[in-house]
């Protein structure tokens, strides 16, 4: 373990900043050399993915600590450091992000013809921001990456989107910024509490974990953090930006938004909101879980009646991410593992669904379900991939979705709030209803629209776009063990720390002054 950390300690910096370096290289290439720009962007993202695989192989499955840690002082007077690391919770999210990079770039080959250079540069900056946010172990660093991903996404939606793109782009960024700025105040307050309790200024997450925040402060701090993340997830009733953003974004934007950006919210819960303020989180758990359940059922019902394919997939995201939240809030090993697994599943299957909708849109310039029907006979290869993605999204055993959903339900059953299992299971049934119904209307039945007769099946490039996600769906469905065993220690550790910190807060809150004076401190996380 020691050897691993020392020998490869800079690999995370490389993974995070390689896309940014690529973006800088792209600025030097003339904008009319489209092929070069596309291949270069593909090469950079693919290289980044290959680099990220070394995380997988070098990761010590039995350890719960942060691995591949990089730590350097940055703004010393405020205790801000450049601190990166991954554990079992963030490892696969990093891999997912790096995995989708080349897929997304390849999918834009024919869809993006205008300002290709700027588009690729923005995708690469976005990639840097997302990877950075997943591996940051310093609050300021995290916040910077968190906001850095907003701007490229905003431009992607606003410039390359569809008719109502500007409205959608502004709505997206205003919702997210409003939430994250309130989180910033919360964080500043935490920073101040931390300096009181620890006796020095620090923004280091592992140091801040050790601060036991008095209960009344936890309540407000949790709300400020949870609001930012809830908007991002999005948890009902903060989801209204999502359908607009998804529908108006170009395909690549929708894929990244659904596959990675939404995970940023759930990741924020498990990395920040819950472990930093566990007592408040515990008290508010029924509220969060109820909202998640409302999201599951509401998202599914609304998805069912959508005439627009993209909107349907967007609402299905609201439903699926409710599942993730339920899993995380079960505070059981299988529930949280399932929640994380479900994040990956949703990233892959919903990403694939958006790619598929994009492929249809490129051919027919419409996304209305009623405009299709009977496509399976015309497009057999396409039908295969569409079917796999649909079944994965539903959670068919043998595909990835099943593993995640099963673990979440199992975990929920053993949690303190087993009643939610019933509602969550309803969501599973409903998702089968709306997905299969949609699939039947699009792919089966008679070919009623003459425009659909001349449709081409997938090109080799499009097969290459859809093949990696499809392979992952089978792989993660059939062989979940390599994934789960790497998550397990970190999740167990998280649960143990969560409960211990609640106890300490209860004891300490009888004399809050002791907490602030640093007399009661949570020592389990050793900063060194």
């Amino acid at each position, binding site marked *: 373990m020691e050897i691993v950390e020392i020998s490869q300690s800079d690999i995370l910096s490389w993974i995070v900043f390689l896309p940014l370096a690529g973006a800088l290289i792209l600025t030097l290439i003339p904008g009319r050399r489209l092929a070069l720009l596309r291949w270069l962007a593909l090469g950079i993202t693919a290289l980044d993915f290959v680099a990220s695989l070394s995380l997988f192989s070098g990761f010590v499955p039995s350890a719960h600590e942060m691995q591949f840690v990089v730590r350097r002082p*940055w*703004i*010393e*007077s*405020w205790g801000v450091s450049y601190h990166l690391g991954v554990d079992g919770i963030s490892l696969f999210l990093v891999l997912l992000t790096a995995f989708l990079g080349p897929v997304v770039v390849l999918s834009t080959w024919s869809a993006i013809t205008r*300002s290709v250079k*700027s588009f690729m540069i923005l995708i690469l900056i976005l990639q840097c921001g997302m990877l950075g946010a997943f591996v940051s172990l310093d609050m*300021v660093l995290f*916040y*910077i990456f968190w*906001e*850095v991903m*907003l*701007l490229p996404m*905003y*431009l992607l939606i*606003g*410039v390359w989107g569809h008719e109502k*793109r*500007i409205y959608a*782009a*502004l709505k997206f*960024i*205003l919702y997210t*910024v*409003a939430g994250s*700025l*309130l989180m*910033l*105040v919360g964080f*500043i*307050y935490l*920073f*101040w509490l931390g300096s009181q309790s620890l006796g020095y200024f620090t923004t280091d997450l592992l140091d801040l974990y050790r601060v036991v925040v008095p209960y009344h402060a936890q309540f407000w701090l949790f709300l400020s953090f949870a609001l930012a993340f809830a908007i991002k997830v999005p948890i009902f009733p903060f989801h209204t930006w999502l359908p607009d953003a998804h529908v108006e974004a170009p395909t690549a934007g929708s894929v990244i938004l659904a596959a990675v950006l939404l995970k940023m919210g759930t990741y924020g819960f498990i990395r920040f909101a819950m472990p930093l303020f566990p007592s408040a989180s515990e008290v508010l758990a029924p509220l969060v879980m109820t909202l998640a359940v409302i999201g599951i059922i509401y998202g599914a019902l609304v998805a069912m009646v959508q005439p627009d394919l993209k909107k349907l997939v967007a609402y299905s995201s609201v439903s699926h991410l409710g599942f993730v939240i339920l899993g995380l809030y079960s505070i059981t090993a299988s529930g949280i593992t399932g929640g994380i697994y479900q994040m990956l599943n949703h990233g892959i299957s919903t990403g694939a669904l958006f790619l598929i909708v994009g492929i249809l849109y490129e051919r027919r310039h419409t996304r209305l379900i009623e405009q299709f029907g009977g496509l399976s006979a015309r497009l057999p290869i396409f039908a295969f991939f569409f079917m796999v993605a649909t079944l994965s999204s539903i959670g068919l055993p043998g595909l990835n979705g099943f593993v995640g959903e099963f673990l979440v339900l199992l975990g929920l059953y053993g949690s303190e709030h087993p009643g939610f299992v019933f509602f969550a299971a309803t969501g599973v049934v409903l998702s089968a209803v709306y997905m299969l119904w949609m699939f039947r209307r699009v792919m089966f039945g008679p070919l009623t629209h003459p425009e659909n007769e001349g449709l081409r099946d997938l090109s080799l490039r499009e097969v290459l776009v859809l093949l990696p996600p499809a392979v992952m769906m089978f792989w993660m469905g059939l062989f979940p063990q390599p994934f789960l065993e790497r998550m397990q220690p970190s999740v167990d550790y998280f649960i143990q720390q969560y409960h211990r910190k609640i106890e300490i807060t209860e004891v300490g809150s009888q004399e809050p002054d002791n907490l602030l004076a640093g007399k009661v401190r949570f020592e389990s996380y050793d900063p060194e």
Partner: protein
Amino acid sequence: MLSFPEINWNILIPQAALASAGFFLLLVAVFYRGPGAGKGPARVGAVLSLFGLAVSACMTAYQWESVSSDLGGLLRIDPFSTFFNLLILAGAILCVLISVREAGGLRHLAGEYYALLIFATLGMIVMVSAADLLVVFIGLETMSLSVYILVGSRRTEAAGNEAALKYFLMGAFASGFLIYGIAFLYGVTGTTKFELLAAGLQGNSPGALTLTALGLVLVGFLFKISAVPFHMWVPDAYEGAPTPITAYMAVAVKAAAFGVILRLLTVGFMPLSEYWLPVMWTLAVATMILGNLAAIFQSNLKRMLAYSSIAHAGYILVALASIDPNSGAFGDDPALISAVFYLVVYTVMNAGAFAVLIYLGHLGRPMETLEEVRGTGFRYPLLGAAMAVFMFSLAGLPPTGGFLGKFYIFSAAVQRGFVGLAVIGVLNSAVSVYYYLRVTVQMYMRESEESLPALPFSFPLSLTLAVTVWGVLQLGVIPSSLLEAAGRAVLFLR
């Protein structure tokens, strides 16, 4: 019998350099009219004033270590004043760089234009090095009178004249308040020197006269920094003035006024802190809210930036409201450091934003409203990217200096227990994201109705943009050295 104090001329070299540069420019303007009154005088003026400013800046930087007071305690040279002098000189240099075309349009008045710019700068550095309210007043008037003229330098344009007149009338009132306040203070304490003021105000609870004096003096400066409710002149003056002068007002004038306020509040008025701290709190809230809300409804970019500069004054007032009156050493007071840091960031990003507007103005048609800048983002990629960086920074989004600046200010507020103030400030920032990003929306997401011609290359503007973009990003990513300098500067307050 008058006795002349020993004068240490060395510490006055920066001021002397500026004064001689100004007079020399006036002389040159009289004798050199250039062939056909073309751009010659403007170029010569720009080079000469840059030279003068650079010499002055070098001499000022040389004083970084020194602490001394001179002219019988009328001036005080310490790292704080040196810091602000450098900031003001940097602002003036940027302003000269973006003025070349504007001054060229003035033809044979270019020399006077630059001379006034230099004199205004001289007034500012006198202001921030002053240790006596009367010296402050002299500096303030030197600055104000020059700027009034500069605002109206396009003599044939009605908007410019209106702006100059409004600014002058309001400014004259503000100066009146200030000198009235100084007189009252003298009446109460028998002195106008900052340090003796503090001693005179110590102890007894202040009477009505003292508080009136405090109020009047503050009004004079709050007017210059465009705090609500003394902001009425800002939108009109900013919109009507030539754009480089607007930038100058937004950047240098504000920095100078804040420099004086910081020193005055922490040195002279510290005994009255329980009276002015709540005032700052209230004004900060009012200024932020009014500036941001009004900016939403502006379609003219200069007017939008005018309201935005009001809003930013509000953010800095948050820092002033968070000053800890009981802390022994100000070097540790995050409020002061954050105010100084924010002023630097603000200077850089605002100068940059105005430079983009001026560059777009080179197209030969007005480029000031949101409709007019449509489609420029992709047509002029570098210019568009620079504007995007400035807008993100003004909105306070990372990884720009604007984000760290706001972060420090709100941290200072939270550390003083003003969580409510920080929340109000943050919500205001969220509002501001809307109107700043609207500029990028227009530049990138909408198409221009008519085709946009190629933009002639301008070296001074490109240089300004390169420096400001670099500055905004550097302050957002590696701010440590500036933070250290700011920390050292505020160490010498009180």
